[in-house]
């Protein structure tokens, strides 16, 4: 398995992580590590184990075997489905989770997050009445409340239109530049190529590739073709 571009100052990683659900093996001895400020894309076909890996890294699930290495104190988690209360307003959601995160200045944090997500003009609207894209922005804002060292995003751009996606990736890139390590899973391999420093290719719970997008392309015409060819060569 290629392992190009590893960083030395590891902030989060996995060491032989496996996860079983009954007879099904969702993850098989997955190992990697990420450095500060890195953007890692986790890609793979449906059922590859992307969400399972992210949920183990976030602490929601325990691995059946192996361990998560160098877990920082605060890990931001942005699940695929918005994990916010639809009957609360945008500001109320951010305020609630800011309080639960024991953020020092709650109101200043709420204002900053509304600014970051460009939702200040929708602050009083119920989340349930927002579009899917705006709901996802609230979801991300809540994930960032603890000013985490590591941010985990599970298919964050799924419900967003192209303009919102662009804003999202600009925002994520700015976080990474600030030293936040960002993991994201995506089905859009083009996003992985454009916005990730490294890609982790998972298939049937097995980590098949760990390296920069350029290393996966090789002599293929584009990243998506290279990705499909790579999986095909390995029997997936």
């Amino acid at each position, binding site marked *: 398995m290629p392992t190009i571009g590893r960083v030395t100052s590891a902030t989060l990683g996995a060491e032989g992580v496996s996860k079983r659900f009954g007879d099904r093996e969702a993850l098989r001895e997955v190992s990697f590590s990420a450095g500060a400020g890195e953007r890692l894309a986790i890609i793979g076909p449906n059922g590859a184990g992307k969400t399972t890996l992210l949920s183990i890294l*976030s*602490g*929601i699930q325990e691995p059946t075997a192996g361990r998560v290495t160098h877990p920082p104190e605060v*890990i931001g*988690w942005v*699940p695929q489905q918005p*994990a*916010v209360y639809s009957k609360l307003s945008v500001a109320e959601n951010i305020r609630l*989770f800011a309080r*639960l995160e024991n953020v020092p200045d709650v109101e200043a944090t709420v204002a900053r997050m509304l600014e970051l997500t460009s939702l200040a003009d929708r602050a009083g609207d119920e989340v349930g009445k927002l579009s899917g894209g705006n709901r996802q922005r609230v979801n991300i804002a809540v994930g960032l409340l603890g000013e985490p060292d590591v941010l985990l995003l599970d298919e964050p751009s799924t419900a967003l239109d192209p303009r919102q996606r662009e804003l999202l990736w600009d925002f994520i890139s700015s976080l990474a530049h600030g030293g936040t390590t960002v993991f994201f899973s995506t089905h859009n391999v083009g996003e992985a190529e454009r916005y990730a420093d490294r890609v982790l290719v998972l298939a049937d719970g097995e980590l098949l590739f760990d390296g920069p997008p350029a290393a996966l392309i090789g002599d293929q015409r584009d990243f998506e073709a290279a990705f499909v060819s790579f999986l095909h060569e390995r029997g997936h």
Partner: protein
Amino acid sequence: MRWLILKDLQILRRSPLILGLLLVYSVVLALVVSQAVDRGPSKPRIAVVNEIPPDAATFDLGPEEIDVNEVAEELFRSIDPVRAKTREEGLEKVESGEALGLLVVPADIPQKLAGAIQLSGGDPPSVDFYYEDDNPLKSTQVQSAIKSRIADANRAISQKITAEAGKYLGFILRGGSFSVLGQSFDVLGLENAERIVRAVQATLPAGSDNRAALERVRSFADLAAQNLDLSEELLNSIGTPIRVNERKLSSSGNAFYSAAALAVSLMFVCVLLGAGLLALEREENAFGRLVRGLVTRTTIVVQKALLAGLLGAVAGAVILAVLTATGSAEASDLPTALLAVLVASLAFGALGVAIGGVTREVRAASLVAVLVLLPVAVLGLIPSGTVSGAADDTIAAINALFPFRPALRGIESGLTGGDLPARLAHLSALALGYGLLARIALRRFA
């Protein structure tokens, strides 16, 4: 349409848990209800005190000796008697719930019964029946049951009296000698009178009269009329030789109705709230975010149960205030009633959270809550001891496992000054138990 039916059947076949639950639910419910109906109050559990001294239990009815103890045993055979030596001991059994009522056969009943049958005047024979008037459903059922049993005993005595009355009628018809109240009577009898009159008629010339014979006929007519008067009185005593003196031990007025209304309202409010609040965390996908170090699963269980319970208690307080304003509850009982409402609400809230934890979806939680609560409420309103055998044990077990019955009794105790600490302890234990169940369910909740 058949394709839609086939599709639905396929879906049902692939939902064995739901199908199994519905099947088990309907079977268990049908069994419990049928047991309760089939084994109705045929043998109510009633404390009995027989005050008749063993050597004073008999009296004579004509040539026959009647043993009142035998009559009493006949009465006891129709109930599930809980023997007590004294009235005080019997009353304790009623207060403790061991018996539904207390039936006392007074020491003077043989004399009174003999007097009634021998037409010597005096008070009619009666038994004393004590029962608690705290639960109108129970007291109605118990009154009905004991009156039925007394009617059985009266019927048995009536058969003996009827036989004796038949002998008197025989004297009137055929004549003979008998004694009543120490006086001997020689009765001609209607048949003899008829023969005499016919004989006199045959011997007398037209227009002549035999004064002595006619006088005898007149005397008989007079005596026959008196005997008929006696028969009327005797027949009256045959109908209800034994009367029942009903004595209410306590009267809580509308406390039972108030407690029942409160318990039902609290149960639905708190359980549905608790179940919905927890299931909503999962439906909003927020549960996973919350338990990632923000709060513990135990905190979530406690918070949901507390919130559901406190909101229910607020609703309960409002209902209590209305009941007090309308005179259905006493203002002096409000503090204890409120305490009972609060603890009951917390137990209901914990039950709701457990249901929410197991079902994991708001709609499923609401459906399961209603499916569970309706039969629990019905069974909780069946007075203990009014059904017998396995049905009573099953109902008692269900009532002990769910907070409805303890809440009903607790609120009632709060309104009437009953045994509140025991009810509160029961409700607290249930709250803890359901809280634990909810916490276990949250292990696979996300």
